[in-house]
């Protein structure tokens, strides 16, 4: 794929030669994550998180399938069946904690992955499609995690399902019937639990499918890198294997240490105690909060407290919550700066570190806090900045800012010199979006 200097798969063993003729699966792997895929030599650790996300997906699928062997998706016994897993199934406690904390780990990893994309503008041409597919994956992950959290049928499962499906009832005219249709009843009950289980089992495989498209799209231009300067020559790249397999192996080790520390020593730290109370439609918990990874969006939802232009406050909140993720779809066209990396964008960088990151931190905090002052006012300010950042600041800043000078090439950046740079007609400071030489 990608670059003309990519190594070609040459099976030496007769069996592999035979297989390569009939079904070139090893060739596919070799070109995708083996020595046949040239990758920029200057990637930093932020580029580890895609592989980690893939690992998390597999971890969730494996632990999930094992849980599903013992779990019973019926409102009468769902809660007891999870307790049965915790107490009576051999290593069941480990599987359940691994799955519940695996979901959190997955979101930590994916949030860092998205952050990387935002700072280094990985969403820009020629990588728009990778980014768009990534946003689709994120939406699917949210749906999957939401439905998974309903399955143990504790208090937060039940009330979370009720509140989140209740959002649809804010839609004019069709809202109420839509909610009833989604739940299969007027409130979450057996019908809802059953369909959530069915979809919760299905969606991870849909995610896996979109992940394959995501990686396919990645392999056309190849990975970006911290300078944002496109690959020019073979000297700018190293083969994925062994260079990045080794680096990803180390990254995976660090990830597993942190993950297992939580899993074995604080497995309930990220969960809510109320979910150890069986679902009870007659008793509303004092504070209904979703899992931590939904907090920023929950804060945006609750920030809209006043009707606006005849739009009821609740509907505004719902629209804004969905819009807060949907704006990501438009980023490749809202950010018009020809420079990718935030490192070379002085003005962008200021808004990023002193605007977007604090706003996200406030939204994370307020989404988990009770809906009272000062948290509501704080989330209103942070939400305002959030929308302003993507919809107003980014288009304007990217048009007016003067980027810092870029290195001539990746090699020059790494080694301090690149013999080709002297031969080049001029050291163009600003990269035009030059897609990698397409040869396949």
């Amino acid at each position, binding site marked *: 794929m990608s670059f003309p200097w990519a190594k070609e798969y040459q099976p030496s063993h007769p069996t592999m030669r035979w297989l390569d003729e009939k079904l070139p699966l090893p060739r596919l792997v070799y070109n995708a994550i083996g020595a046949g895929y040239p990758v920029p030599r200057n990637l930093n650790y932020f580029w580890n998180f895609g592989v980690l996300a893939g690992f998390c997906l597999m971890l969730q699928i494996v632990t999930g399938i094992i849980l599903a062997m013992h779990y019973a998706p019926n409102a009468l016994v769902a809660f*007891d069946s999870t*307790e049965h897993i*915790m*107490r009576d199934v051999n290593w069941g*406690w*480990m599987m359940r*904690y691994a799955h519940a904390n695996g979901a959190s780990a997955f979101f930590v990893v994916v949030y860092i992955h998205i952050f990387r994309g935002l700072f280094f503008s990985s969403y820009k041409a020629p990588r728009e499609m990778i980014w768009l597919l990534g946003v689709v994956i994120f939406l699917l992950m949210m749906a999957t995690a939401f439905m998974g959290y309903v399955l143990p049928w504790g208090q937060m499962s039940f009330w979370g399902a009720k509140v989140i499906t209740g959002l649809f009832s804010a839609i004019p005219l069709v809202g109420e019937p839509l909610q009833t249709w989604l739940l299969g009843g007027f409130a979450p009950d057996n019908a809802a639990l059953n369909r959530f289980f069915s979809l919760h089992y299905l969606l991870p495989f849909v995610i896996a499918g979109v992940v394959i498209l995501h990686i396919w799209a990645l392999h056309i231009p190849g990975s970006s890198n911290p300078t944002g300067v496109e690959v020019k020559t073979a000297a700018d790249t*190293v083969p994925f294997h*062994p*260079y990045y397999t*080794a*680096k990803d*192996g*180390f990254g995976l*080790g*660090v990830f*597993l*240490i942190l993950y*297992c*520390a939580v*899993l*074995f*020593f604080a*497995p*309930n730290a990220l969960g809510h*105690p*109320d979910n*150890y*109370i069986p679902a009870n439609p007659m008793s509303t918990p*004092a504070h209904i909060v979703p899992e931590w990874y939904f907090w920023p969006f929950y804060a945006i939802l609750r*920030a*809209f*407290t*006043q009707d*606006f*232009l005849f*739009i009821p*406050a609740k509907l*505004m909140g719902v629209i*804004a919550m969905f*819009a807060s993720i949907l704006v990501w779809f*438009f980023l490749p*066209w*809202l950010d*018009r700066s020809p420079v990718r990396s935030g490192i070379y964008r002085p003005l962008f960088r200021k808004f990023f570190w002193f605007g977007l990151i604090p706003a996200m931190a406030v939204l994370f905090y307020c989404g988990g806090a009770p809906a009272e*002052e*000062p948290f509501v*006012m704080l989330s*209103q300010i942070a*939400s*305002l900045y959030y*929308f*302003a950042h*993507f*919809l*107003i600041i980014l*288009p304007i800043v990217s048009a007016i800012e003067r980027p810092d000078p870029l290195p001539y090439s990746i090699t020059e950046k*790494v*080694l*301090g010199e690149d013999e080709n740079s002297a031969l080049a007609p001029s050291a163009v400071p600003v990269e035009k979006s030059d897609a990698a030489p397409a040869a396949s």
Partner: protein
Amino acid sequence: MIRIISILVGLFFGVALAWSFVVGAVTFAQEGKPETAEHAFHEYPKDLHLASDGAFGKFDRQQLQRGFQVYKEVCSACHGLKHVAFRSLEQLGYTEPEVKAIAAGFQVPGLDPNTGEQTTRPGVPTDYFPAPFANDIAARAANNNAIPPDLSLITKARHDGGAYVYSLLTGYQDPPAALLQEFPEAAPGTGLYYNPYFPNLNLAMAPPLMSDGQVTYGDGTAATVEQMSKDVSAFLVWAGEPTLEKRKQTGWPVLGFLLFATVLAYLAYRSIWAHKKAKH
């Protein structure tokens, strides 16, 4: 074009938020935050140190047996423990015959082998602890319209579980004069008892542990209210997660192995990259 639309959409959300903010801020400035009795008088759990705490924590079996005795002789009159099977009590250090005898001391639901009618029979080790009331209506009728919750998961279902149960059991007191003065409506109603550790300050459980020596410990420990409360809390921490000890014991070798493997992976990474890094 897309940028103009984007800025307009941004303004739309921005103005809506600013409007919400202004209205909220004005209301807040005028009315402030309403003070509630719960906010002013609720207290966070006292410290409780159990042998099972911490990354190296292990259950103190002697204490768990004492705690079980408190549960059996006091709490089980009103609270079930439905996720715990009698057989699990062997983990507390009871022998098989002892567990059989304990199980036989509880009446569990059964069927009359001759008539098929519902009756009760003495428990066997594979049974689970029975619920003390036939159903929620019976539970409410006997407890001033409140349902005593099943205690199997109580320490996981409350923040600071063990410490919370301990604080609740030892936290009964007369409502402070300041409370009665500022929030007369927060005074305990009939059949309710003031307890600042309970989220809404008044609960329907009469203080279950009232006097020293309410149970007689076999191991000679003095059964003060303090001691019984600690012991039963420790027991309920075990009941909430009997696998807690195994979990922590499994964690260490796992982390050890991962640390070793990660160091190896790091060395491999360094040596593979040695000639590709900048040489300065």
